[in-house]
């Protein structure tokens, strides 16, 4: 029998769009997200290019709609473990990790954080700040319900008896004996919107990431600028704690190794330059780029605007750029457009790193029985069926799981996946 329920893997912008559209028809949607919150990567950005709209203001209403939809069952801290069956009749096993805080009873007042005696690095904030063992990754997280990290919670890891958060909660929402669960669901179709990761900067030692404290990844810079970020939007250097005076943004890091252009880095690098000029008008900003990839009707104008704001664009092959220096000052060695070696000093370097397939792509591909392309992303079926079909009927792709793309592209692909699901299941 044909089951018309749908599983959506990943609650980033693509997964959210697909879930909301499907749920609006009355279909039941299981939205599985491995993190404790929805919103994927988009909620990490302060603004989006090129219209510079506030990112959280743009996406939060959609996240809220997911939480309020009667037809969407959101499973956070959850991963897909097993998939059997075929289109119209899939049986899926989901592993749902204990959150230890009830999504129903918690009202998100945040009274439980302060009494928690444990502090640990906040990965969501790129380790630029700390969180408690009971935490929401950043202010404005949705669902606005904390989770407890069982590895660090003293009661849960058995290091000490501690009941501080439970005592602080006025709603009885915390349950330390919460257990991991296995859930079996039956669905007719699956949409894979598992997103992307960023290549590790450690793979490119010539840029000094990890060696010099004031070399940052683009996403770290993004969080430093963000008003809900670790510094509440104050841009101060990791070493020195002062605002930077000369900033070098280096594009295309990892492009050659990955074998493709990530298509969004030019634009987000321009956005970063624009951010920095806005907050630090006197700082020098250099952008080391190769060919500009800014497809589409709105993007080139943004490039022109940023240029006029006084950002220095330097055309320089990325494979010949080196960063040297010490804790405080950095020296960028590069070749200019005339192929002459030059040097430039800066106190902050930002690396625009390539996008790559999500870290769980290989395992998902195996358990879903769908192919990856040679670059590691999920493989689409080309022009015959379209970019959302996989090698297996009933399983569709949306967003960066299929390849690097911007928010508009991810949304379009999510809607296209819904189109396919609707034609197959109706």
């Amino acid at each position: 029998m044909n089951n018309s329920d749908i599983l959506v893997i990943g609650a980033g912008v693509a997964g959210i769009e697909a879930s909301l559209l499907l749920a609006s028809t009355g279909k039941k949607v299981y939205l599985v997200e491995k993190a404790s919150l929805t919103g994927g990567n988009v909620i990490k950005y302060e603004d989006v290019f090129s219209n510079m709209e506030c990112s959280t203001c743009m996406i939060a209403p959609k996240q809220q709609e997911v939480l309020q939809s009667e037809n969407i069952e959101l499973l956070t801290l959850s991963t897909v473990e097993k998939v059997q069956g075929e289109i119209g009749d899939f049986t899926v096993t989901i592993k749902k990790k204990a959150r230890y805080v009830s999504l129903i009873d918690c009202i998100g007042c945040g009274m439980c954080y302060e009494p928690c005696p444990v502090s640990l690095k906040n990965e969501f904030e790129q380790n630029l700040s700390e969180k408690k063992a009971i935490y929401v990754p950043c202010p404005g997280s949705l669902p606005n319900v904390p989770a407890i990290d069982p590895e660090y919670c003293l009661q849960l890891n058995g290091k000490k008896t501690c009941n501080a958060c439970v005592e602080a909660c006025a709603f009885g929402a915390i349950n330390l004996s919460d257990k991991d669960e296995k859930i079996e669901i039956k669905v007719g179709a699956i949409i894979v919107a598992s997103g992307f990761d960023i290549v590790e900067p450690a793979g490119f030692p010539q840029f000094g990431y990890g060696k010099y404290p004031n070399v940052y990844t683009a996403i770290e810079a993004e969080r430093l600028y963000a008003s809900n970020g670790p510094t509440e939007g104050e841009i101060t250097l990791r070493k020195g704690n002062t605002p930077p005076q000369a900033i070098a943004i280096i594009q295309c890091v990892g492009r050659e190794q990955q074998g493709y252009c990530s298509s969004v880095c030019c634009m987000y690098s321009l956005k970063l330059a624009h951010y920095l000029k806005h907050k630090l008008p006197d700082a020098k900003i250099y952008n080391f780029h190769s060919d500009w990839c800014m497809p589409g009707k709105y993007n080139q104008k943004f490039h022109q605007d940023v240029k006029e704001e006084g950002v220095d664009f330097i055309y320089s092959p990325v494979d010949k750029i080196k960063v040297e220096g010490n804790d405080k000052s950095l020296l960028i060695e590069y070749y200019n457009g005339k192929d002459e070696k030059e040097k430039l000093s800066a106190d902050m370097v930002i690396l625009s790193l390539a996008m790559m397939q999500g870290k769980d792509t290989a395992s998902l591909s195996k358990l879903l029985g769908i192919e990856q392309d040679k670059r590691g992303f999920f493989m689409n079926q080309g022009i015959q069926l379209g970019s959302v079909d996989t090698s297996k009927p009933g399983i569709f792709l949306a967003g960066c799981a299929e390849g690097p793309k911007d928010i508009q592209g991810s949304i379009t692909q999510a809607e296209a996946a819904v189109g396919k699901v609707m034609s197959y299941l109706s």
Partner: protein
Amino acid sequence: MSDRIGVYVCECGPNIADKVDIKKILTEISAFNEPPEKIIIAKKHKLLCSKEGQDFLADEIIKNELTHLVIAACSPRDHDITFMNVCKRTDLNPYLYKLVNIREHCAWIIPDKDEATEKAIQYIRAGISRVTYQDPLIEKELDSIPDVLVIGAGIAGIEASLSLAGENRKVYLVERTSSIGGKVTKFEKILPHQGTNLDIIQEKIKAVQENENIEIFTESEVEKAIGFFGNFEITLKNIHNDEQNNEFKVGAIVAATGFNLFNPEKIPRYGYGKIEDVYTSLEIEESNSKTGKILLKSGKPPKSVALIHCVGREERGYCSRVCCNYMFKIAQYLKEKMPDIKITEFYKDLCLPNKADQEFFVDTKNKGVNFIRFKDIAVKQKDKEKFIEYTKMDGKKEKISAEMIILAPAIEPAEGSKEIAELLNISLDETGFFQEAHQKLNPVATSIDGVFIVGTAQNPKNIPDSMMDAQAVGGKILTQLIPGEKLIPEVIVSEISEAFCTGCQTCLSVCSYGAIYFDEDRNISIVNEAICRGCGNCVASCPSGAAHAKHFTSTQIYQEVLEAIR
């Protein structure tokens, strides 16, 4: 029956209870005399949003026969829908309730308890004052037609028609030219990483022709499209025969009107139209597809070819996205036919945004194609010889000779886009393409509900992305326009009072949704409630105060503010 108002304060655990004096609030609110004796009951509860709290509220509404409900709790963003649903459960019209936010606005931000309490009381009084002026609003249901009009039978229009047509849904596919398939049918090949060959396009064309739920009108144009999402009345005209008109109704419209190429004659330095053997990429595609050959005007095969990218990019103000890739494709055509040919590609930036593009570039380069990044470029002719004179990025001027020059002109909106936009009441953006409802979150929709845009009519794009747009419209329409199901339009809409309207038509010029029409006979503007989204533009701009927004009337706002600042 006189008004019976119930006021309920939520403790929100300690969040509100510890920060404001709820007892004092209840005492003062019970004694609030404006409006006199209408407050039947004022009570607190520990957590109104909980299931138990919602049941409590529902009981209270019924038991006390409340006509109006005021809740003092959290942000409407959190629980407005929750409490509206409680109202619906009890038959209290949900627009006769008001949520006052005393948590984010008072308890959480004011350290001094007395001050927080005073502000909370003021806000609640404002809420009470407003709620009595609120009117019950009723959700309406509209019948809808599931059929769809698709304008343009290029690859995007064809894919959209195939995605939409079905047993219960008819598609009307309208094409200006005499055949369907669009520009893609002029290509010899599509990019290798986009599929196997062009047969797939022919198969899709055949599938459209054979689909009994798709009706094709070639050599036809849309003459009229009037109505709103779910109910559009369409008139088509035959381009050659004025009397052959077709009329039908659809629920949605998809504009897939495609693109034009920038005319390189506008930039004389490329020599197009003046110098022999300077071609556009599309001309080369067409001749290759028709004859299988790429030859000079003299009939001889070229020994050297220069391919120039980015023609018109600066003039148009954007990068057309697809040109780099198709120029590699043309270079590969030439290399296949004439392995010894000398090919140079002149480019400004190589734009390779798809995951497989870079590999195609490397492959082209490895086949012996020379790539030069230029700053300035011009095509010159001396005697019978043609030259490309260019300035490299380092400022050095150089020149090479070439027998054939192929230009990659920018993609621009199709001819007639402006007329189509006017006809459908949608907007063009600053580049002349159709403007999407939201640049990021709603790219295939427009500001007019039920009118969608796909393919290169929205933005320059390649074949797979045009197809993806078409499938995305499938996702939108198949979920929103379900055969047999009614549409529920926005309830909070504006109204124009016939008595006050002077017929100045200011409102028509500010309405972004085309929701207002002008009744010439009565000399008044009228709001079509099925289209209005309640943005309030007309209300703010009406010089005679004839327009007002339901649920946000001047009286309601005035009464609320009056109490808030008392």
